[in-house]
Each structure stands twice: as structure tokens, then as C-alpha cells.
């Protein structure tokens, strides 16, 4: 049995019929075809699947797709503007070497965005606290923290 949901995805209205047990991650990757959001563990333990729901980060792998009805979802694909320009956080990640294998990057960029949207000038401790839910094995986090600091204009 399928249920209908309608929500805003990266600024565009979307209406879909979904199986009620779908997770938001499955909705994005399999149904809509946006593969930028990654599955790192499937259990909400690594943050690779982070997306923004009404501006707040959630682990989409354990978030029921049924609950996005009436809400707005932003994935990594939604960060570039209509002209295809990169978001300042994306630029900073590139410039500061914050990306190696890149698998954790989409989730991290969105966590960084949520952090800076709420706290535009975070200190280092606040940055670490804000991204603690995103695991990265390649970078050791240091250049990611530098990138976020730079993106915040500090």
C-alpha cells in the first residue's frame, strides 16, 4: 500500500507515492535518484547520510520518509545556487583541503551549514561540537575545522 507525500526538495515542490516504511535516505537515493547523500552505516552512527530538514540536520538513514510531508528537505545537491555557483562552505572545503576520499563530505558540508546558520561565528570548540556527528577517516578533521572557520569569515 502506498502513501502520498508532498514536500519541498532543494527548493522545488515534489509529490510522490511511497511505501510507508521507506527511510528518507532511500527516498532520496532510490526514488528521486539524488545519490549525493551517502549511506555510511545505515544506523545513524556516522552522519554520512546527513540532510537538512527545515534547516536542521537529521540522519536520513533512520528518518521515516513519511515525516517529510509538508516539510522542506535540502540535500548536498541543493547547495549550489541556480547559476551553479558553489556555496561558500563548499568553496572553503575545497580551498582548505577538507576533502580527501569525499564520502563523508556531503554530510559534513550540510552539518557545517546548519552550524553556521545557527551560530555564524563559532569558536573551535563549537565547531567540533557541531560536526561531532559526522565521522571522517581520511582527514583527521583538522582541515575540515579550518575550512568551517574560514567559511564563517573568521
Amino acid at each position, binding site marked *: 500500500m502506498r502513501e502520498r507525500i508532498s514536500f519541498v526538495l532543494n527548493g522545488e515542490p515534489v509529490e510522490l507515492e511511497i511505501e510507508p516504511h521507506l527511510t528518507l535516505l532511500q527516498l532520496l537515493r532510490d526514488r528521486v535518484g539524488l*545519490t*549525493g547523500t551517502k549511506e555510511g552505516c545505515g544506523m545513524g552512527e556516522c552522519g554520512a547520510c546527513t540532510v537538512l530538514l527545515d534547516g536542521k540536520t537529521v540522519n536520513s538513514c533512520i528518518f521515516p520518509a513519511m515525516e517529510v510531508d509538508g516539510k522542506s528537505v535540502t540535500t548536498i545537491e541543493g547547495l549550489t545556487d541556480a547559476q551553479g555557483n558553489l556555496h561558500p562552505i563548499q568553496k572553503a572545503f*575545497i580551498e582548505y583541503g577538507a576533502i580527501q576520499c569525499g564520502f563523508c563530505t*556531503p554530510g559534513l558540508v550540510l552539518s557545517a551549514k546548519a552550524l553556521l546558520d545557527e551560530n555564524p561565528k563559532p569558536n573551535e570548540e563549537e565547531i567540533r561540537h557541531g560536526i561531532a556527528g559526522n565521522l571522517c577517516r581520511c582527514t583527521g578533521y583538522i*582541515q575540515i575545522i579550518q575550512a568551517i572557520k574560514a567559511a564563517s569569515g573568521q
Partner: protein
Amino acid sequence: MEEFVNVGKRIPKLDAEEKVTGKAIYIHDLKVPGMLHGKILYSPHPHAKIINIDTSRAEKLPGVKAVLTGYNIPPIKFGVYKDNVPLKAKKVCSMRDEVAAVAATDPDVAEEALHLIEVEYEILPPLFDPEEAMREGAPLIHEEHVGGKEKKPTNVLNLPWRLVAGDVEEARKNSTYVAEDRFKVTWVAHCCLGTSGCLAQFDLKNNLTIYSITQIPSLAQRDYMEAITAMGLKDKKVRVIKTMIGGGFGSKLDTYAFEYIAILLAHKARKPVKILFSREEEFFATSPRQPAIIDIAQGCTKDGTLTFRDIRMILDNGAYTSWGATTPSVMMMPISSLYKVPHVRYIAKCVYTNNTYSQAMRGYGNPQATFAIDSQIDILAEMAGIDPLDFRMRNANTPGEVTPQNFKINTCGLRECIDVVAQKLDWRQNRGRKDGRGIGMASMIHVGGGARVYKSDGCGTIIKVDDFGTVNVVTGATDMGQGSDTVIAQIVAEELGVRVEDVVVTHTDTDICPWDVGAHASRTTFVAGNSAKGAAKKVKDQLLEVASKSLGESPENLDIRDRIVFSKKDPEKKSPLGKVLRAAHYAAGGSMLMAEHFYDPPNENLDREFKGNLSVTYAYGTHGAEVEVDKETGQVKILKYIAAHDVGRAINPMLLEGQVYGGATMGIGYALTERLILKDGKVMNPNFLDYKMLTAKDVPNIETIVIETNDPFGPFGAKGIGEPGSVPTAPAIANAIYDAVGVRMKDLPITPEKVLAALKEKANPK
């Protein structure tokens, strides 16, 4: 110091934009039409005979297109020792043994089908302790395996790990101080954020294309060729195409059962088959770092000169053999060549058990051995009443040295590394307070100029330049996020006088890319870099030859800088690169610029005695840590962490720092928190909650210091850096803990419980 335009610059990684926008395609994102999903059934027992496998119910499930077991696959043997088969038929030797596999239209259907497969087992007595497994009369893991001089059935592998230099017994007698200790290190996991997987596809003629995340495309291609030959497909081609790789760290240095299973399923079902590991499978069914039980003795004279190093190791080989069993060949490196030590003896035994089996992981045995060696250096220094800083300086390797393993050390920045770490830690002031805060250091050596592990250590590059000055570099090297694509682009741009943005690097397809032995041994910058530089030089020569005609100047007087070809004698005589290229192309008897270069470094295979100049040059480094130990809880906090590395030259300082930060963070986890917990052969923590890799809140502020010794053999002087960051972390931290609270930790990870227990033992010795 020359002024470089592209080398030494903090240039962003070439594929960063693809990754930061979510456009990069990893194996997880790849779909091909008609694709089936493969899943694997694993053994529930660590050691058992397989009595029967019944797949009839699974085969009937709608959506299931192929079911395979050890009974119906051709004989494919893989692994370093060729003791592993993709699906087991006679017995299972570990809980990650693959017993059956299913390909279905949907991953959920495939999963359901696994539950319908009935396997009957007869349980056999398991062995989880390598020391027990070595004993006479222990149950045999592989009954047909015989070894030793008498060729008796045994669990001890026939591996020749024995290195002797000088006379250790004699040296021991002549030592004033001798330290003897046992150190233990256990399994840790790579934790790549992207889990493993592959997609196998046969064409109508039975040629295989496999989309893979391998670090060794050329060698994997050969392994797959052997497999399909065993499948009866003679003279067929294999093409390995790499998707974006979600982390490597050595985990993709070998071929795994799941890859052969995907190939077999694809062949049986006549459809492409994709296998993707869940995170749980990633933890229990991929191969972790090699554990070791290390018995080590070192000695020195009264004035602190090292005399000997005598080491015996027992390695838990697990159920099958992968690269873990070869880590002793790399452990020999610090054993023979970390600090000057004239007399060396090393014997390692690898033993089959019913545990998981190990693979390559960043450092490949070096972190394990260095933990023991450089922890004990501090112990020895204390016995001799000498400050560990002075002890290390006294015995530090120097340029021009030939070590007991016949390594020829050319550039060596070890002294500089030790010095700068001591300065940053304010060593003389801060050491010896024993008030809960302490400092410690440890050094490392690693191969920095390739490593002739196989008969070839080479890498090929093909370069072509188009009419507009775009330079296409096709390399055999593998980029798994570490940045080899960017470094190669910088080297080529520097050599050819163009900009980095003019260079496109292709590295993903064995049909197009030349041979490379693989991304291991921190060799890529050195070998692939030299290969690219060589090809670029050839292209440049062609270019200058062609330009000499249009500029009326002999080639020796020409150079290229920033896309302009100019005369060194008369810089006003110049022409843009594109113009020169088009002039050469669009003329009668025209030519296009293209060149290739296969660079195989002038290093040596180790001989029968494991001696030889394995690498062209060696990378040195020192790490230092300041820690605070909470004496009531045993928790260790790192207040300061310094990582100094002799890198030859930093082609890209930003990416290089990334390697050190990442390597050191992995190493700090190795020292303090990470452990793959096995109990009775079962991985108890196959998830990110209970496997404690560091989060952004845990990593200390790591300061990286780059020492440039300008190696004459490296491309623009560069040496390798991929692994060194992970090597000396554990001994540096253990040494700092000793300075802080006077307890010597010899067992990784150094958890709060172990520290507290040691503190209690110290206060009330039994």
C-alpha cells in the same frame, strides 16, 4: 632553493568540486541496466565441517536469478598463500567464511533468499589463541597443510620470516644494559566511510568488466584473469574500471572473496551483479590490521649506544592468508633500520587460528613493530640513566648510512625531526615532572622511494597534448582520496611549463591506463610522480624540437613557462604554446605531441636473507605528545601533538598535511581507543557505536612540521608520506604516559581501565 610555479603550492584536489557537490560516483551510486544484487551467506561457526548445503528453497524464491555454493563453482584459489576459495565446500574456518551467495533483482529479496538456504554443520573444536594453535596436538585449521623440516601437519605457516645481521648473542653479552619486554597489539579496522563493493559484468563474448574500488587495478586484473581462466573462460579479457573510492588505507590492497563471488554470480546469471557490503559486513568480513605478540630485547653500552635488537613475534594469521602474513617483511624495516643498531635478529611465526584474517593497513606492520621498538628505547634509556631525547640523538640514522638490512640511506632528516619535536614540547623544561602531565616522543622509518615487493615496482604514464595546450595525463596510479591525481598534475605542469588547470589526469581504467603495481608503500608520489615527470620531459623535448622550427632557435635555448615557449637568450622571441602546437599539427607531415614513460625505481628485491635496498630512499619522522593522565579514572588526554616528517619535498603542502593529520588521527585511535573485539571468533563490535574511532571532538590539535631534505631521486625531491603519519603515534603516547604517571603500557589500545589497573599495581605491587 629553486622557485617553482606549481610544485610546493597548496593546490586544491582536482576532484574536490565533484565530491563537494555530491556528483562523484562511488560504487554505491553505480547502476547499470539489468543489474542484479548479490548477497553472501556467512558461517555461523568459527570451525566446522560442512555436511550439506541445501539451496532449493532459495532458488525458488521469485526474483532470485542465481544461487551458488562451494559445490557448484569452479576451483578458484586466491590469497597470498592461495589457501582461500570464494565459497567454502568442505569446512568453515572462521565466522566470516562465505558459504553461499545469491543474486536477485532486489537486495531485500537476496537477503530473504539467504535465510532460505539450509546448511548442516558438524562443529569442530575452535582455536582462537595463536600460542595455543602452535602447540603439538592442537586441532588443525587446514588439515592438508604441512610444514617444518619434517613436513608434519601444523597450524604454523611455511613463511621464511627470519632476519639476522651480525651476532646478537655476542652483542648481548657485551651490553651493559638489556631491556626485555613483551608487547601486544590487536586488530583494528580501516573504517573507510564508503563500504566495499563491486559490480561484475560479462559481455556477449565473456570478456569481464568489473567496476571496482581496488588500490591495485593492474594486479587485481591479473587475479581476475586467473579466476576466469579457472572458470573455463580462456583468452578472455578483463577490464577493471575504478569508481570514486570511499577510502582505502590498505583495505583494497588484496582481492576479496566477494569480488570473485560477484564475477561467478554474473557469469551464472548472465546479468551484471553488484555486491555492496553493509557496515556490519565491512567490519566482520573485511580484513583488519595484523595483530602481534612481540617479544623484544634491546641492549646498549654504558654510554647509550645501541648494541642489539632481538625480536620474536607470533602473528595470529586467522583462517586464511592475506597480506597480514607478509607484514613481517615490512616490520624488518624498523627492526633493522630505525636508529643505528648493528646486531639484529628477528623471527616471526604466523599461525592459523579460527579468527578473522588480516590485510594491509596503513603502515603495514610498521606501527606494530615501532610501538615495541620505540617504547623500549625509552625503557632502555631510563636503565642507562640517559634522557630519551639524547639517547635517540645518539643513535639517530644519518645520511649515507647502510643499515644491517643493506638499506642505503641517502637523505635522512631524522635528527632535524627529533630536534624540532623536542623544541616544540619544550623537552628539557617539561620532562620528568611525573605529576600527571608528561611528554614523550617516538620516531619512524618507512620506505619513501617505492618498495620492490614484487618483481616490478613500476608505474607507467602516457601524456598527450592537444591543439590548445590541454595536457592529458593517463597514469597507472590510483587515487583513493590521498591526492595523487593532483600531485601528478602539479609535477607535469611544473615540468611542462603549463598551469595545473591545463592538466587532466585519468587513472581509472585498465583498458586505457598503463600498468602500476598499486597504491601501497607510500610509493605513489615518488614512483608515479617520477613516471609522470619522465613522460612530461619527453613531451617537453618534442615540444621544444617543434618550437625550434617556428621560433628559429635551437631547442637547448628554449624553455616553456606559463604556457609561453620562449628563447632563454632572447625572451622577446616567444610564442604561446597553443600556437606552436597547432603549427606542428596542421602542416604537411604534421605531428602531435605524445609520450610515455614507464618508471621502475632503482631499488632492489630483498634477497633470501631479506637484505637489499628495498627502496630508493627512506622517509623519517618523529612524533611528540604531551598528555595529561587523570590518575583517578585512567583517562588520557592529549594536550599537544607534534608530527614532524622528512618528506624530501612537499609537492603539495596542503594535501601532505592532510595525509599527516589523517594518518596521525588513525594512529592516535590505534594507541588509545580502537579495537576490533573478537570473542570466540566473533566480531562483537561490528558497528560505529562500539568500534571507537575518533570523532571531531576527540582529535587533538595536531601540529605538522615538514622537513624538506630534497631527495635527489624523488620527483622535485619528494619522498612518500601516505603511511608515515600512522607509524610512531602509539610509542610517542605510551612514552608520554610513562613520563606523566610512571606506568609503562605495553598493550594496545591504552584504555583508561588498563592505565588505572597499572597505576593501582604500581601503588600496591602484588
